[in-house]
């Protein structure tokens, strides 16, 4: 009996373990990956390995916060393993925060390397997927920044905060992209980034030392795909509206005109969108119901906020403004881009399966003729910590 136990324990120790044993001093954490089109071969992969000591306040000594190494090859998977051509330590991909895809790569529909990212054991599904607009993906990765120092970490934090406050990032992860790509009733979207300033001055520690950096990575727009191909970019305003329709928005703020050249600022802090889809007379029709709670953030119109009528008046104005924005975005998608990035097809698939089955093949065409009604109800709950505006007390 005892011998059995001994054999059991020995086999645990000898048959398993150790193969994935890596000391911390032997690894470099990869935080970002940039994929560009290569001139000679298919891909050009750049990875950002973090110099952990530079990110720690106590040990930082002013050197570059990370190292970016680029290789060219036919598959991303091979390149990811070949990085030791130039990098000393073992690269660990599990903490990758940002993936930046070059515009060219996306336009030519070469995003099939996502298969590697999904297949790999180490890589997780919690990194941002972005498109580099007008610049090379590698350039975006190389721009330094004062706070997170590494570009990939900065972008990750930046997009997260943006989603929380205003909603300009579609907040897509690998699984979202793949789901949108493969399902019949929706199309992938990604955030598009660009560099403000001189991309050549980005990869220097001097960039971190300036109050107004020479190069700064900014959120530019929303990249719209049709299948695997990038077909265009939508401005940030539309990005927010798309998130609103797809019920992904957390908080946002809008400016509503109340008089000529006078605006209200409305802060939306709680909102929900429900979509009902149905085939009506051979045309898909959708009813988008938006319900939102908001408070008045600022008012340039001097109306009496002690009166309930003022509130309902403001509510109406806001509803109209939102309605206008959402409808315009939908129209743009239907007529200009002809791509169902809203996932309306999926809604129809769920709610009216029989009809959707019939038009599944030419859904993109049906989407263009779809009737999409938007119904917005806003409830203005309060007006900040002030009732009367300071403007009403003017001399």
């Amino acid at each position: 009996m005892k011998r059995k136990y001994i054999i059991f324990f020995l086999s645990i120790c000898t048959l398993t373990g150790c193969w994935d044993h890596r000391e911390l001093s032997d690894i470099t954490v990869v935080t970002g990956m940039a994929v560009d089109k290569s001139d000679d071969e298919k891909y050009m992969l750049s990875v950002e390995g973090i110099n952990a000591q530079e990110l720690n306040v106590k040990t930082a000594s002013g050197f570059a916060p990370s190292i970016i190494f680029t290789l060219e090859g036919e598959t991303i998977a091979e390149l990811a393993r070949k990085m030791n051509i130039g990098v000393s330590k073992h690269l660990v991909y599990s903490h990758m925060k940002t993936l930046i895809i070059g515009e060219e790569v996306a336009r030519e529909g070469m995003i099939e390397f996502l298969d590697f990212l999904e297949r790999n054991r180490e890589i997780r599904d919690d990194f941002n997927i972005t498109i580099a607009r007008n610049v090379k993906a590698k350039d975006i990765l190389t721009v330094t920044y004062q706070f997170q120092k590494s570009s990939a970490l900065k972008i990750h934090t930046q997009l997260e905060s943006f989603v929380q406050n205003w909603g300009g990032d579609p907040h897509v992860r690998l699984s979202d992209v793949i789901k949108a790509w493969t399902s019949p009733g929706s199309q992938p979207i990604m955030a598009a980034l660009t560099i403000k300033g001189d991309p050549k001055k980005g990869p220097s520690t001097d960039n971190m030392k300036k109050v107004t950096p020479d190069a700064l990575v900014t959120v530019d727009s929303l990249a719209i795909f049709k299948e695997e191909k990038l077909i265009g970019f939508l401005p940030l305003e539309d990005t927010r509206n798309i998130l609103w329709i797809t019920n992904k928005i957390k908080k946002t703020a809008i400016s509503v005109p109340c008089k000529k050249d006078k605006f209200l600022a409305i802060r939306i802090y709680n909102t929900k969108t429900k979509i009902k889809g149905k085939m009506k007379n051979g045309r898909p029709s959708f009813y988008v119901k938006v319900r939102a709670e908001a408070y008045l953030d600022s008012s340039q119109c001097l109306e009496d906020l002690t009166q309930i009528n003022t509130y309902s008046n403001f509510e109406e104005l806001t509803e109209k403004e939102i309605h206008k924005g959402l409808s315009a975005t939908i129209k743009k998608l239907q007529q200009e881009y002809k791509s169902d990035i809203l996932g309306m097809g999926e809604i129809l698939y769920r709610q009216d399966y029989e009809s959707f089955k019939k038009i599944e093949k030419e859904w993109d065409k049906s989407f263009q003729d779809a009737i999409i009604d938007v119904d917005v109800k806003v409830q203005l709950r309060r007006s900040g910590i002030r009732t009367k505006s300071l403007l009403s007390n003017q001399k």
Partner: protein
Amino acid sequence: MYYGNSEKASQKKWGENVAPIKSIRTLKKKRISWEEKLNREVKVDNDKEVQRIDNHSIEQLKMEITGAFGNTADLKMVESTEKGILLFYLDSMVDSKTVKDTTPVIYRTDRELSTVKELTSLCNEIFGGASFQLVGTMQEIYTAVLDGCIVITIEHLNQSLAISMMTDEKRSVSEPTTQTVIRGPKDGFIESVSTNISLIRRRIRNQNLRFERFTIGEATQTAVYIGFVNGIANNAILEEVRNRLKKIKVSAIFESGNIEELIADKTFTFFPLALNTERPDTVAANLVEGKIVILIDGTPFVLIVPAVFVNFFEIAEDYYQPYFLASFLRMIRYLSFMIALLTPSLYVGVLTFHHELLPTTLLLSVIAQREGVPFPAVIEVLLMEITFEILREAGVRMPKVVGQMVSIVGALVIGQAAAEAGIISNIMIIIVSITAISNFVSPVYSFAAASRILRFLLIIFAAVLGLYGVLIVLVAMVAHLSSLRSFGIPYLAPIAPFIIEDQKDVFVRFPFWSMKKRPKYLRAESEPKIFMESSPSPPDKGGGNNK
């Protein structure tokens, strides 16, 4: 029970009954049937040589005693030839002042002392309430002398008189050094068992509180008492305790630890199977719950049996504090047990196998700190843990005069210098400290030993197998725990087997009025503990205190 001659007896016994040993293997396999066992035990009693004192003369008696005790310096014999009285005692064991005050009266008396009855009545007059017993055999006389009696023998009487005059040399009752409380009684047990019993008796003034005496240790003849509350303690467990104590045949018992090892259900375990305490209030509370205590003369540590896993997280103060605080602190204790057990191994496992488990910023910060550390994580951990164990042992053993050295050397030299020299990382110091501090939270010192030793096993498994290894050890540990029993009670009760009624006093402590019954797992003879109808509340709500 006296075992003065049993050495000889047992030799004979084994020589006669056991077949000659062929090989160790056959010896191991041989099973002894119950009847054989019982017969043997009876025989031991018959074999005893009974040496009565019926017709000894004083001279003969003196010879016998000097023969038995040799020329030991503290044996005093006082003889009065004209009356035929022989009085002897161990100088070191009796209170000399009392002897001086009382014994001369025996010599001065004019009474005839020709019968035992007359002797008894005389002694009643002289010694009053002091307990005495009549002893008839040499064996009994020896034991009485060793117990601190003076023995009075009169020529040709078939019984002698042994009067207990034990010295009262003991330290005074003081605060326990190992199990301290903020709120609660501050007295602790001392080395004298009679004082300890009185401390318990003063808390439970109940005729059902019983103590039974055993004498264990053939060389030391140590007095061991078991205490229980009749009608509450489970009779079967009580009988088991008695049996196990009776079966002990060793030459010496000095501490409750000796007894604990000899009566435990299983000794190949890191976990203690009996609770030890220095606190009379803990003992009293446990007695009333239905447990049995074992007191050993010469040590302030008292054993409480049966003890289950959760008992080692309960302290007396839990019941003196508000129940919210008590519950919180109890959970802190469970938590710190896990911390003490797991932190170093999790550190090794996560840092060498599972980098993805840490948040990125934490990982980067750890990497930055470990930059330049020459050792792998496991060596670093073992180095620091062993250093800490050495420091701890030194701190306990070191003479108090040089005690401060430990803290200086430990904190400054080992901790700070090692980190500054870059031999270990700063985070390692945090890990070692939190582990050490958590380990000290354990209310019972012997229980902390379990996590102290298992920790190293876990570190080694984590180094080889990562968190998978940690899991393996934990699974094995839980399997082992559930196989343990303390006097027949499953060690993990009332968690496994799960007893819903007992959950009121496991991870949290319910208010006093709601714990109406004694713990089920102890199988107490009588269950109700609180006789109030309901919780205290205003009269119109029908509160229990206002009826």
